């Protein structure tokens, strides 16, 4: 019998992503298919997708995707929304009835704009304002859960295998320039709809494979800055870290990667002086945001993707290209499923960020 | 060549070196059996004057006067170590008289004894150095 290392033993989660650097639109079909060869990396307790550029008609409004346990929660939740936003459009997210996905909550979508007068009186940046309302709903309204809150993008997730979740949400009917996907093999949280991935805040979404050992250190630090880790998942805390570093601290993606998958001190010591000082500064400044333990993540954001492995590369992740498209997945098979002729397939180093952005003006 | 040196600063005057020396040269494997109820004749001595203590043993001099004074050829210097052949020693103790450090010790067994760096006994490494609790006695190249 072959041993570990000689044969791939399936475990953990599956992640997959595709992006068109030219901003060309793709339906959700391919990304759903990419999850099929990685079926064994999930256990049917969670799957999900994020699509970017999918709401061109409402691109200036925040799209709130919300799960409600029952209709009575809708009222409570809408009261909070109406206090802070103008609701431009409200609808039930269309789904397909399939036997593989059952016990669904009420799934609503709101396109909203913050009330300008309120923003001004609170002296808050618009995005910060949205974050606070999302946190408020998720912590204060029992039975309501905002799982997507960005502009011109959306997350779709459920308990089930990812390929079924994709069909359930009719993702073949959406078109986006970038997609991420996740199949879940939950280890440290019970499988429920809100706990499925991607996890999103504003336009940041994260799909993640791994179980980070730094979780509570990261959580207790980030919660100092108004974030509430209600799901207790790694993905949630990683998303907040990304939001904090990128949006609130203004770090670049590469700098963010140098914080969460910081190079070892021995590596830093051997860098040229300028680089060394910079890395040392970041590591000292944000030491509590270092993430240890295995992870491969794909961070989706407005106009791009960043893929990153933990610094020891304890999880698989490969990257490939074809024409204007870049593919990232836990396994090469997933990439081949999306594009049989994909080229330049390689496994990035631990801690080496892969950043892909759509060309300026193309999204 | 490695020799035994004493750092007066760290000598506690505990006299353990004397007992370790006597034991090492006793040929016994148990210290109690070797030393209990016996007068010991160690090859290292702690000199004391008030609060100053200092362990003294053979310096293995460059030009050892003991060797020069030996009438029977029992004392010799080989590879830097001054040794004594007790079979040749006639017990005249001239060496005891001439040694400026008092490091050659007469015994009632008709032969003088002196530090031979534990090279001839089972210890193999100076027992006084090994047993010194404060590293006051060291065995090193200088």
């Amino acid at each position, binding site marked *: 019998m072959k041993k570990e290392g000689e044969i791939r033993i399936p475990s953990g989660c599956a992640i997959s992503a595709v992006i068109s650097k030219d901003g060309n639109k793709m339906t959700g079909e391919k990304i759903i298919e990419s999850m099929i060869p990685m079926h064994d990396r999930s256990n049917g307790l969670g799957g999900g997708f994020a699509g970017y550029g999918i709401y061109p008609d409402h691109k200036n409004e925040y799209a709130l995707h919300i799960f409600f346990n029952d209709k009575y929660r809708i009222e409570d939740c809408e009261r909070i929304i109406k206090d802070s936003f103008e609701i431009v459009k409200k609808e039930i997210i269309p789904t397909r009835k399939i036997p593989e996905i059952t016990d669904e909550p009420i799934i609503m979508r709101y396109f909203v704009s913050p009330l300008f007068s309120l923003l001004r009186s609170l002296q808050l940046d618009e995005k910060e304002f949205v974050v606070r309302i999302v946190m408020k709903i998720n912590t204060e309204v029992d039975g309501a859960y905002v799982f997507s809150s960005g502009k011109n993008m959306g997350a779709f997730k459920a308990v089930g295998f990812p390929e079924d979740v994709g069909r359930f949400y009719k993702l073949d009917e959406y078109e986006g320039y970038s997609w991420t996907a996740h199949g879940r093999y939950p*280890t*440290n949280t019970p499988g429920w709809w809100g706990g499925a991935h991607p996890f999103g805040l504003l336009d940041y979404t994260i799909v993640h494979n*791994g*179980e*980070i*050992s*730094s*979780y*509570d*250190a*990261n959580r*207790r*630090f980030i*919660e*100092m*800055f108004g974030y509430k880790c209600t799901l207790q998942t790694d993905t949630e805390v990683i998303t907040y870290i990304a939001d904090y570093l990128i949006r609130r*601290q*203004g*770090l670049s993606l590469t700098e963010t990667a140098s914080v969460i998958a*910081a190079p*070892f*001190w*021995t590596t830093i010591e051997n860098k040229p002086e300028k680089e060394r*000082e*910079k890395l040392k*500064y*970041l590591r*000292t*400044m944000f*030491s*509590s945001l*270092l*993430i*240890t*333990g*295995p992870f491969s993540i794909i961070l989706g954001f407005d106009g791009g993707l960043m893929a990153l492995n933990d*610094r*020891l590369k*304890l999880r698989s992740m490969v990257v490939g290209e074809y024409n204007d498209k870049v593919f990232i997945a836990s396994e090469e098979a997933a990439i081949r499923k999306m594009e049989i002729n994909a080229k330049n397939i390689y496994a990035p180093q631990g801690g080496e960020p892969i950043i892909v952005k759509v060309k300026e003006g193309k999204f | 060549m490695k020799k035994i040196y004493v750092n007066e*600063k*760290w000598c*506690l*005057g*505990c*006299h*353990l070196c*004397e*007992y*370790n020396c006597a*034991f090492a040269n006793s040929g016994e494997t148990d*210290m*109690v059996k070797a*030393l*209990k*109820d016996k007068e010991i004749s160690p090859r290292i001595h702690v000199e004391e004057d008030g*609060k100053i203590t200092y362990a003294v043993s053979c310096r293995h001099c460059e030009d050892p006067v003991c060797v020069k004074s030996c009438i029977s050829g029992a004392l010799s210097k080989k590879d830097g170590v001054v040794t004594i052949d007790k079979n040749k020693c006639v017990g005249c103790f001239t060496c005891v008289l001439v040694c400026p450090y008092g490091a050659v010790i007469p015994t009632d067994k008709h032969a003088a004894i002196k530090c031979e760096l534990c090279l001839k006994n089972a210890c193999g490494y100076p027992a006084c150095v090994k047993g010194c*609790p*404060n*590293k*006051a006695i060291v065995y090193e190249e200088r």
Partner: protein
Amino acid sequence: MSINYIYPEFEVVRNPNRCICCRVCERQCANEVHRFDADGKVMLSDESKCVNCQRCVSLCPTRALKIIKSDCVLRENANWQNQTIKEIYKQAESGGVLLSSMGNPNPLPVYFDKILINASQVTNPSIDPLREPMETKVFLGKKPNKIERDKDGNFINNLPPQIELSMPVMFSAMSYGSISYNAHKSLALAAQKLGILYNTGEGGLHEDFYVYGDNTIVQVASGRFGVHENYLQAGKAIEIKMGQGAKPGIGGHLPGTKIVGDVSKTRMIPEGSDAISPAPHHDIYSIEDLRQLVYSLKEATAYKKPVIVKVAAVHNIAAIASGIARSGADVIAIDGFRGGTGAAPTRVRDNVGIPIELALAAVDKRLRDEGIRNNVSLVVGGSIRSAADVVKSIALGADACYIATAALLALGCHLCRTCQTGKCNWGIATQNPELVKRLNPEIGSQRLINLMTAWKHEIKEMMGGMGINSIETLRGNRLMLRGIGLNEKELEILGISHAGQ
């Protein structure tokens, strides 16, 4: 006072079959317990003088000696225990305050022993520190809340001065005076080799030790002994000592007999005069006064030295720490009620203060709740006994630990708890030159280095087991801890779940 009410606490047991009358016990006992009887050619002992420091036991070449607890006891009484009664006898005789040394020895809960550490199984891999890098480096000091960039977008280093440590352990304050020159030198040498810091305590810095400045924390305490500009400039960091775990609310008293020679010179007080540190700093009667001292020290050192404020763990420590975190201090050091001392009133040592585990958990939580945890680093001391205690402290939220008793044990201390007598047979808590020379710093520093190296290995092993390869992701990572045999309230304060949860 002709009747002696107290039977000696220890018995010196000498095995006559093994004793070779080498008299090393006699020569090494500063308490003069042993003596040689030339007539009978036997060693005799006066156990009434024995403090059970075990110097004789350790040096006896034939292991002919042991010290045992006397079994001569008073009639058993759960309320009036032997110790209690003997203390009453002592006070009835002396009319004085009872003095003790080292930490609280009473059987109060040791929370560290009721906390268990996690390890990875299946879902994420443990990491082998022999094969993979395992980082224990920490930086102590305030971390600004916002990055700054210059016009070209490069970072401006806006970090206040930081203390870099190769591992999250430092040697805590023990003054030159309360401990010997050689003990200080051992600590300084070891700190330098290890890449950590030692602490002068309130006794000034001997001129020979300025060379170890980069590995020195210079302390400013209520007596201000030995404090001058060069002293402040000499260290890597400055510590304001507000309190000490062994005697919260109490100052210090180094008897004139120990203020001799270099000790007097270093403390800048006349020979033979008692060195009395007031209970409070008489220029700090409130938190705003502390802020002034913090900034005075920063002004004096051109803002190049982090300032540590050390306090004893007392009931409202969380609120106190919150105040200190806003005082401009860079590091808060908290000393738990089991912390050691060269001398403290017994009643204070044994009854005042709270355990460091609870104090740490409460402070870390409070500072996070207030969003000011980044303002300061947290250093905890007060009986950190092993690498496991270090790991548990870090996971509870500390940045680093202070150790002193463990360091003294490495130097030979046998915890006989009679430092106040000045007759330390191990050359540590004494100024008697004959005794001081018993501690050769070459040996002492090596033993400290060995101890810390061993702990570092153990810390790495435990981190690796948890799948953590950098100490900063252990900090405050309370999920890695579980309580055992703790009640709901204790778990709530510690912020951990019970084992099995």
